[in-house]
């Protein structure tokens, strides 16, 4: 009641820190259990949530665990027992969770986790880098990358909506510091509106003494294979379902999203592709370049797992040059997003030249001027080697 009064029955316009926006997104989804361990730059998210729990603004069990591995494991226990849960992490914390990330998807447990993208050591580095989440691409979690705090807030609501239907966990990414520690004006949905969009979590089976079941038992090859195949099949359907979610969300909240979001792409000769807040920087550069008469565009990649290859092919088949800006690298191969795009276009007759640019690891700043320089010299970029800029 108090919370309803404080935040009002209707959407409100608020100026807030990215981390706080995320905490409000989580609050609106009413997780019954939150379990988390602090790590820079995620810390503000869980601090704000613990304050919300303390004031009663959010009715939730908050488990202050002793490690990230326990944070996600406690969520596993909580979801298995039938409660919607939440955790957030970053960098080394995500790496420490790796084993349980596999377990979560294999167990078909829904969860939403926010990851504030940050570099992994050595050497120590707390700044933005997407290597942490990109290196978790094979664990069976859906991955959404956000450009703004508004997008992150909305994505959390959408992520719960999706996760509990397909019974797979979803990771929502924000670029550390760039989104987590900056202020943004955004529209905060009301609890009533979110309740109408997101039904309570009511799993068909859970740890219930009245209906005892064994969860995650050993499985021999045949059953194991079938269960993993089912995850792959569900991933195939996730894109369609999420697109339905976007449409429903747009109908209720007026903000629309896509798996891939084109900007000035229709006649573009050079199109940039990237994920996360870097898209904002590229937008500024694209605007400048367009004013100068250059045909430059941007494709923002929101969904990374499942990889929206078909959508990208539809969008970019006629493009001459695709410059992929990777905030992560797979050593010995290429930038992570570039690899995915090359794989997606492999069977296409008509495909762009894909340039793999590694940029901004460990928080190295990217300015619109850098993007402008890359755009103007795109034809000179090596088509085969990774290009390290910065």
């Amino acid at each position, binding site marked *: 009641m108090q919370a309803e009064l404080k935040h009002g029955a209707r959407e409100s316009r608020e100026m807030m820190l990215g981390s706080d926006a995320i905490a409000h997104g989580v609050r609106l989804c009413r997780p*019954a*259990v939150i*379990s988390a361990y602090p790590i820079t730059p995620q810390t503000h998210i869980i601090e704000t949530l613990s304050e919300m729990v303390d004031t009663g603004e959010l*009715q*939730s*069990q908050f*488990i*202050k*665990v*002793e*490690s990230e*591995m*326990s*944070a996600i*494991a*406690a*969520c*596993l*226990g*909580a*979801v*298995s*027992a*039938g*409660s919607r*849960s939440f955790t957030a992490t970053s960098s080394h914390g995500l790496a420490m969770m790796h*084993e*349980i990330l596999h*377990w979560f998807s294999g167990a078909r447990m829904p969860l939403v986790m926010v990851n504030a993208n940050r570099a992994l050591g050595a050497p120590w580095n707390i700044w933005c880098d997407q290597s942490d989440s990109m290196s978790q691409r094979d664990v069976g979690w859906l991955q959404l990358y956000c450009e703004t705090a508004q997008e992150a807030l909305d994505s959390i609501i959408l992520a719960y909506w999706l996760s509990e239907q397909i019974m797979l966990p979803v990771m929502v990414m924000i670029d550390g510091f760039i989104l987590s520690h900056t202020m943004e004006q955004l529209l905060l949905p009301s609890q009533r509106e979110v309740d109408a969009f997101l039904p309570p979590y009511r799993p068909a089976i859970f*740890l*219930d*003494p009245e209906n*005892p*079941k*064994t*969860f*995650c*038992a*050993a*499985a*021999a090859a045949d*059953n194991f294979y079938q269960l993993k195949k089912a995850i792959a099949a569900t991933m195939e359907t996730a894109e369609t379902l999420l697109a339905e979610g976007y449409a429903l969300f747009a109908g209720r909240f007026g903000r629309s999203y896509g798996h891939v979001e084109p900007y000035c792409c229709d006649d573009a000769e050079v199109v940039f592709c990237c994920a996360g807040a870097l898209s904002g920087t590229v937008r500024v550069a694209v605007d400048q370049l367009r004013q100068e008469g250059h045909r430059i565009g941007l494709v923002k990649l929101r969904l990374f797992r499942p990889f929206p290859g078909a959508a990208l092919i539809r969008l970019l088949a006629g493009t001459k040059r695709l410059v992929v800006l990777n905030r992560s690298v797979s050593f010995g191969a290429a930038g992570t997003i570039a690899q995915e795009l090359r794989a997606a276009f492999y069977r296409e007759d008509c495909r762009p030249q894909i340039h793999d640019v590694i940029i901004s690891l460990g928080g190295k700043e990217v300015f619109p001027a850098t993007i402008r320089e890359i755009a103007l010299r795109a034809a000179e970029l090596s088509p085969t080697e990774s290009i390290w800029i910065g």
Partner: protein
Amino acid sequence: MLWNVTTTEYLTSGHMACPGCGASLSLRHALKVLGGQTIVVLPACCMSIIAGAFPSSAFSVPLLHVPFATAAACASGVRRSLLAQGKKGVSVMVWAGDGGTFDIGLQALSGAAERHEDFIYVCYDNEAYMNTGIQRSSATPQGAWTTTTPAGKELQYEKKDVIAIVKAHAPAYLATANIAYPDDFMAKFERARDLSGFRFLHLLSACPPGWKIDSSEALHISRLAVETGIFPLLEQDEEKNLRLTYVPQSWLPVAAYFQAQGRFKGLAEEDIDFLQQETERKIAAYG
């Protein structure tokens, strides 16, 4: 005292334990005390296999298999989930081996104990990594042969005092038990069941292949562990001090315990003398 044991089986026949397995016998009786309103959280250990492979299960209470290092954290999540839903009257029990407790699971155990999470943590201690084929754990006693302490000639390390570690967290309940003493065993599970907060039970759990004994000897040797003072039966009293719940008329020499098991074949006489003194010293500390 004769315990009024229910005929209901929560660990059913058809499970995959070796003959003479102390862990399955202990679990069967523990669940009889806790009853059907129990949720079990099970990290990687022998019992992960004993419980049966999908689509079968030997458990007729809800069971959650979890990764090795996470039992106490998962159990914390289960309990908080029940709390959030306002569900009462359900026992949550971790059933972990010595590896999942003394070693890889110790951090999560400490975290849950320090937060006073409301569940029962049971360590069934067969004194080595038996599921993977008898490798040394930090619960392996000095001088015991394992596949990673092959010579059995050096005493190697002292068994980690997990009871002291858990005691330092001021748990709501702390006890050791051994199914060779069923009345004591079941009374302790009943006390643990009826309390709330973090409760810890350390069970010595005979493993015939790992201890190199005949299956028919499992209970006899478990009994010897208590009668010699190797594994004293303890319980935390109201002042949170540990006291013996069973004192034999006279303690047997530890040699009786060691000589009955193939795993201690490498012990020299002076080692046994040394371990005798150590055992006496430890027993005296419990007054």
